[in-house]
């Protein structure tokens, strides 16, 4: 099989996963596109290293590296920018999301506000539904660290003021 055919059949099906990861990590739709394009260039170049059956974690590892390189070029960003950024993102999202804005924005903002090491494990686990082992491979950390970062990320999300607001709203609505 040619490189192109292999790329098309093994890697391309994971373009959504790649974009989703890059989008959550960069917190910007345009940056995410740039990052994924760069990741595809690398994936094409290193395609020989891809073993069958591992395409998704393999490609997401490359996407993550490309994202970190990109974030490095941009210089470090304060993680507390996240809340404002995501609120400003609302216009860029498809209209079908808009009707659930109330909850969606608060939770999305809380995730976007997580520090990078926590954000990536949450996105890989909850949105991409990867196993601890796959996440460990992608994020280049031991499985024990996947477990502890997830626990910490979840604790942070549950403590976030945005989610408390939702809970209060629900409790109010039910009574």
């Amino acid at each position: 099989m040619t490189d192109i055919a292999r790329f098309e059949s093994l890697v391309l099906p994971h373009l959504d996963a790649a974009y989703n990861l890059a989008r959550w990590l960069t917190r910007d739709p345009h940056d995410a596109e740039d990052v994924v394009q760069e990741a595809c260039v690398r994936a094409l170049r290193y395609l020989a290293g891809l073993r069958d059956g591992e395409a998704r974690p393999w490609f997401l590892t490359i996407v993550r590296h490309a994202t970190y390189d990109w974030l490095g070029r941009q210089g470090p960003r304060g993680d507390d920018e996240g809340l404002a950024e995501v609120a400003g993102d609302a216009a860029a999202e498809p209209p079908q999301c808009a009707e659930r804005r109330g909850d969606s924005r608060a939770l999305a903002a809380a995730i976007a506000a997580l520090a990078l090491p926590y954000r990536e494990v949450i996105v890989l686990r909850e949105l991409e539904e990867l196993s601890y082992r796959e996440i460990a491979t992608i994020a280049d950390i031991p499985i024990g660290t996947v477990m502890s970062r997830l626990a910490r990320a979840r604790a942070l999300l549950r403590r976030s003021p945005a989610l408390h607001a939702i809970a209060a709203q629900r409790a109010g609505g039910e009574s």
Partner: protein
Amino acid sequence: MNCAEASAGLGAWSDGELAAGAAMALREHVAGCTACRAELEALAALRRDIRAEAPRHAAPASLHARVRAEMARHGDGTAATAAPAAPPRPAPARRRWFLAGAMAGALLAVGVGALTELVLSQRASDDVTIEAVDSHVRATLGQRLIEVASSDRHTVKPWLSARLPYAAPVPDPVDPAFVLAGARVDSLDRRPVAALVYRYGNHSVDVFVRPLADAGAAPALANVRGFTVARALGAGMEWRAVADVDAGVLAGFVARLAAGAAAPLPVAR
């Protein structure tokens, strides 16, 4: 199992990632514990909320077009620029960026240890604290808490030395309330580490002992999900005790342990 031990495993359990033995022990505890059941439900609710509310962004058409263009470009150029024996992973590019970070770090006169995780170094030290708690929890949940059961340090020390790339000191008893129960080889920060196991009342206390050279900065005292982590330095080693034990008690114990190893009591001959 108590609640602190159980709650540390709840996340992995709800993710279906806990080993069978540990899961069984946890199930038994949760069956009789309302607090842990509530915690489990809260975790499930969070997962539902995230999956329902946080958008999974799909690649836009513009990205598909750009990728197609790259594929075409690659197809044209392959024959001319076929790279021989390309590395399997694009690690070098990432390393370069970390290297830039390392330069900045060096200005702060930090002893740069693991280059790859440099950007996360601040958090990585916290991660080791958390990792120590996870190891402790996994060990107490499973059957692997003690691999060599002995209260005799002259049995434990050679057992450890035979299995580790360094000689972990096993100090003389420093506190009658803490009784040496044995040891195991665990891992911290991706390296094998000596874990001395003490009994304090009905609590298990893990003391991770590793060379200072492997250890970064970490808080002397931390509380992770209800577990106390107390750290002391002595005899060229980092001593990190993890237990569901009062912070003052554990900090005192680990400090005496480290000091005891550094200045052994004269042995009566």
